[in-house]
């Protein structure tokens, strides 16, 4: 049985194509996903991300508890700031990638992916037993609306009492937006400036309407999960289920920097990750740009002289580059030799290896 966000009626009235995503009926696109993608790059887009999970960890030892439960060093995070981190299992495999917000001295909000948050909430609750910290999964109470794109701040500013120019990237502050109490975070998954607005379900529809109205002249458009996926891919951001899984460690994914061995105390997965960190990886996550127009997609083999040397994890036509792009895990020695191809439905199509991200916004 598929679940709906509080904004489903709004999406239907906008003529959205809905799709099942992790058990939720979510807007895939409202019209042209390319136009939505370009609007976020040049003006702004409005996203319903209410399928994401919000897990609150509260108590005098909430920071220490998260230090033990996750790979990051969250107890040193300043109140009002956010950090990208992960939760791994005992063998170092990634259970989810997360953004952790420190709301105040003894209160954190962990934002997890729709497909994983129930597991993440259970795991964190198990791992923090014995700490003065209480774990509450409030995903069912919270909606999440994101405004993303270079004109986001000018659209949001007139609706809120919060001074947005004082809100840094990866920071969060409670405020009022269009009359509703909102946690305003300067975070996102598009490679652009923007805001994620955590709000109780009952306020989601009026908040969406107010933002739609406020953004009309600035070119704000509703944007679906299809645009979200191509935006994050251009920005080189991993997606759980594609680049990340329980079979992959943070080091395999080139994200070893999120693992903080220098924090005090042990954490779940530490011993396994120390072994992984001590070894050279044999495969690496890289960016690929296709020379032709056919698109490398999730699961396609990366090949070299007819031999399989890797696998595509995500791929799409790139609006910003005008060519198909992909992320892929590829064997190190094949990367050294070059001459890579992707097996696109039986045809070996040449690709070039590039540094990630594919797209970086101009400051």
């Amino acid at each position: 049985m598929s679940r709906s966000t509080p904004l489903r009626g709004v999406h239907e009235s906008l003529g959205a194509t809905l799709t099942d995503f992790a058990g939720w009926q979510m807007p895939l696109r409202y019209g042209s996903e390319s136009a939505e993608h370009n609007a976020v790059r040049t003006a702004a887009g409005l996203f319903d991300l209410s399928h994401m999970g919000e897990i609150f960890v509260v108590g005098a030892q909430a920071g220490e508890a998260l230090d033990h439960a996750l790979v990051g060093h969250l107890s040193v995070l300043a109140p009002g700031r956010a950090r990208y981190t992960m939760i791994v299992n005992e063998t170092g495999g990634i259970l989810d990638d997360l953004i952790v917000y420190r709301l105040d001295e003894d209160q954190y909000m962990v934002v997890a992916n729709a497909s994983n948050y129930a597991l993440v909430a259970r795991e964190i609750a198990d791992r923090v037993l014995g700490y003065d910290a209480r774990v509450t999964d409030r995903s069912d109470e919270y909606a999440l609306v994101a405004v993303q794109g270079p004109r986001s701040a000018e659209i949001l500013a007139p609706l809120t009492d919060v001074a947005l120019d004082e809100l840094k990237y990866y920071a969060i502050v409670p405020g009022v937006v269009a009359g509703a109490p909102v946690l305003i975070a300067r975070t996102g998954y598009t490679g652009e400036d923007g805001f994620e607005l955590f709000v109780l379900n009952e306020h989601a529809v009026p908040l969406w309407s107010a933002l739609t109205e406020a953004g009309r002249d600035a070119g704000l458009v509703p944007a679906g999960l299809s645009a979200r996926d191509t935006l994050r891919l251009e920005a080189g951001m991993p997606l759980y289920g594609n680049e990340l899984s329980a079979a992959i460690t943070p080091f395999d994914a080139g994200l070893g920097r999120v693992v903080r061995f220098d924090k005090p105390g042990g954490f779940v997965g530490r011993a396994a990750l120390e072994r992984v960190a001590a070894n050279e990886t044999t495969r690496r996550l890289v960016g690929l740009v296709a020379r032709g127009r056919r698109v490398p997609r999730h699961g396609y083999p990366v090949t070299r002289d007819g031999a399989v040397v890797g696998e595509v994890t995500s791929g799409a036509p790139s609006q910003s580059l005008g060519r198909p792009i992909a992320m892929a895990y590829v064997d190190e020695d094949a990367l050294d030799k070059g001459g890579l191809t992707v097996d696109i439905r039986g045809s070996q199509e040449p690709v070039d290896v590039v540094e990630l991200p594919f797209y970086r916004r101009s400051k």
Partner: protein
Amino acid sequence: MSTIPDDLSYTKEHEWVAGVEDGLTVTVGITAYAAEQLGDVVYVEVHPEVGATVTAGDAIGEVESTKSVSDIFAPVGGEIVEINTAVVETPALVNSDPYGDGWLFRVRVEEQPDDLLSAAEYTALTSGES
């Protein structure tokens, strides 16, 4: 709601076929319903060269959108007499004008199709899927 013109024939693979009644040369494209399902089309290829002979039911090309790739099938057998180079250059024509400038190829019919759908039958098919 996508449109389904009365004067065309259709296939279960969501292609339309025009000119079936005179039995000579037919034009083939993708229905508006299929274009909406695909999303923005970014790449169209018809594999055979002009002059090649195709058999009804053959996968003879592909159409890629942001999210997916699908086969193009030959709805009738015969000789490929024209491929729409405009749609190869500008695949978005499939979305903007699926029954007009977004046509894909023309076939001189040698093998009469017997399993094409009428507009009414195709409407029933798509209302069952959506």
